[in-house]
């Protein structure tokens, strides 16, 4: 009954909005202006370049960390890849633990949090600014990021809290506090609190507003233009029903449909690639050429590299610390096994799914190239590459998909909405975990967070792409600043775990069950 009331109220507002389009457009503009003026300083701080260059320090921070972990753990992402897959298959799971959270389930849930619009819209933004070359750096960063993910998820399981009622909570907040204490390093509590604050901002930004924003963009793309806050209110209503109203059925359906959608998305992309299979060689050529020569994109090679790295980090969240929250619920006595499993995440997310998006955009010729020079033409302001219809973000991906088969636009629209929704649900959980870490658990406290979360859905859908993406990135990268600092302190612990596990695996003490 209450629901019907809510729905009709919603319909009434939607109707009122279409009646006065001029007014509602100005609401969008106001939200937008307020948003960019209040978050601009934070964005500038995070993305400030090294003095005298255009290279943001934060991008270097992530890539250097991922490279250090890769070397420190001896190319673990390649060496342990096969073992990771047997772990996910359950080859090493004790049958007596059936009914507990399996490696597969932890991975699937973490993936549904990361496979989101970063893979669809984010990649389009990267390729739109950095050109095809950005794809190369994105894959490269994805491969390196596997080592970061390995480190943080091992720690997430090792230092999780297990409560008397059997529930578990884990994540950077916990491993920073406990791990620093164990190693006798000061300021653990301070860093954990800082992480929690950024995690809440990240949940509002990349985990929420960016998703709402791009979902709206894709919906208007299919049904025609209408004010963003309407999409926002509808999305907020559904999110509210799930996270506040406890409508688990919606979340459950989404969790089941999202993986299917992910597979469908990759298959659709593969179909487009097959339709243009004679162009695949050329597309990879463009990717390499762009990666090392710049091919006329804004900022040249460095521009391509920055965009690739940024999008990879934003999409797979390696080093950000969010995945450690989702992975920590797994049933295992060996924390490092979840580290192994988690390293598949950037692989699936970035190396497979993001690359598909990029290839489709490149192959369908969305980017305008000067036929004489082979250089990409830039828009006015010279910041982005010209696209055929002036599309950017998710609209660019959509144009690429529908240029091959017009109906693919609808598959994409459904994928976008579902991905956006599942990512929002996951991030509302991550944010909530950080919130309760700061303020303690309690019904009212949790409700406050959830309501604010829903308000940000509306803001996200109404704000224009620029300020939202900037803030989303900034908040998520701020988490990485704290998390990676902690990973440096705690990585010897992971190494010990790894050594001990590997020697026991070799000696046969850890055995296969299946």
């Amino acid at each position, binding site marked *: 009954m209450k629901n019907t009331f809510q729905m009709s109220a919603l319909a009434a507002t939607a109707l009122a909005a279409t009646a006065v389009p001029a007014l509602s457009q100005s609401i969008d503009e106001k939200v937008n202006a307020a948003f960019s003026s209040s978050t601009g300083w934070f964005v500038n701080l995070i993305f400030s370049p090294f003095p005298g260059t255009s290279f943001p320090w934060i991008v270097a921070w992530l890539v250097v960390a991922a490279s250090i972990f890769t070397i420190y753990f001896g190319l673990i992402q390649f060496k342990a890849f096969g073992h990771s897959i047997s772990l996910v298959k*359950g080859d090493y*799971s004790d*049958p007596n633990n*059936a*009914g*507990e*959270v*399996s*490696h*597969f*389930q*932890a991975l*699937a*849930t973490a993936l*549904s*949090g990361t496979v989101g619009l970063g893979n669809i819209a984010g990649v389009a933004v990267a390729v739109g600014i950095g050109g095809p070359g950005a794809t190369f750096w994105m894959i490269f960063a994805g491969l390196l990021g596997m080592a970061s993910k390995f480190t943080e998820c091992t720690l997430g399981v090792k230092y999780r809290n297990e409560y008397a*009622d*059997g*529930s*578990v*909570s884990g994540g950077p907040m916990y491993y920073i506090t406990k791990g620093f204490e164990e190693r006798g390093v000061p300021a653990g509590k301070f860093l954990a609190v800082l992480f929690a604050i950024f995690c809440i901002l990240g949940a509002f930004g990349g985990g929420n507003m960016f998703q709402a924003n791009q979902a709206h963009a894709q919906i208007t793309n299919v049904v025609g233009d209408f004010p963003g806050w309407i999409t926002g209110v509808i999305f907020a209503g559904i999110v509210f029903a799930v996270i506040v109203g406890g409508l*688990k059925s919606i*979340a*459950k359906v989404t*969790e*089941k449909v*999202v*993986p299917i959608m992910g597979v469908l998305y990759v298959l659709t992309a593969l179909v487009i690639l097959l339709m243009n299979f004679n162009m695949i060689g050329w597309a990879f050529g463009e990717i390499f050429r762009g990666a090392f020569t710049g091919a006329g994109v804004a900022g040249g090679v460095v521009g391509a590299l920055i965009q690739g790295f940024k999008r990879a980090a934003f999409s797979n969240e390696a080093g950000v610390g969010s995945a450690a*929250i*989702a992975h920590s*619920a*797994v*049933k295992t006595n060996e924390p490092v096994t979840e580290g192994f499993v988690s390293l598949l995440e950037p692989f699936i997310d970035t190396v497979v799914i993001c690359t598909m998006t990029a290839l489709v955009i490149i192959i369908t010729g969305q980017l305008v190239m000067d036929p004489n020079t082979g250089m990409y033409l830039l828009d006015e302001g010279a910041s982005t590459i010209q696209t055929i219809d002036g599309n950017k973000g998710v609209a660019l991906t959509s144009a690429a998909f529908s240029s091959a088969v017009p109906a693919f636009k609808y598959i994409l629209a459904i994928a976008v909405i579902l991905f956006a929704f599942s990512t929002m*649900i*996951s991030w509302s*959980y*991550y944010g909530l975990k950080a919130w309760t870490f700061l303020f303690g658990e309690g019904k009212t406290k949790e409700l406050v967070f959830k309501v604010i979360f829903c308000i940000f859905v509306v803001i996200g859908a109404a704000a224009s792409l620029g300020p939202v993406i900037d803030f989303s990135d900034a908040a998520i990268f701020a988490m990485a600043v704290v998390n990676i600092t902690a990973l440096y302190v705690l990585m010897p612990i992971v190494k010990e775990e790894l050594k001990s596990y590997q020697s026991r695996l070799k000696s046969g003490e850890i055995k296969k069950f299946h």
Partner: protein
Amino acid sequence: MTKTIVVGYDGSKSAERALEFAAARAKSQGETVTVAHVLEWSPYTFLTPEELEERHARRTEEMARAESMVIAPVLEKLAAQGVDATADIKYGHIADTICQIASDKDAAQVVIGRTGHSKLASRLFGSVAGTLAQASPVPVTIVP
């Protein structure tokens, strides 16, 4: 050495019939009964973050409920009949798990009730009795 008869038991009418059959058989042959209660579970399903967090607690609850609601009354009944019985509560694919229990216990046979699904349903989803008949490591009795 006394052997055991594994009975697939889920509290249903057909499982009840299977249990009676197994109990009578065990009594006359001097065998024991193992009551196998399997909670359908796949490690490849998708859960929300909240479900992950609560999974361990839920599992503990489910086990306790199965123990007190399903298994305890059955063991009591068998004890009253003078049949030596134990129970095994497991999670997993039902037929596979019963096969596993049968081979772990080196059982004399498996007894299972026929559920009487329609042809279409068992064609689509397979039936536990049918799968057991094909895959069990020991003889299977299907009680109608």
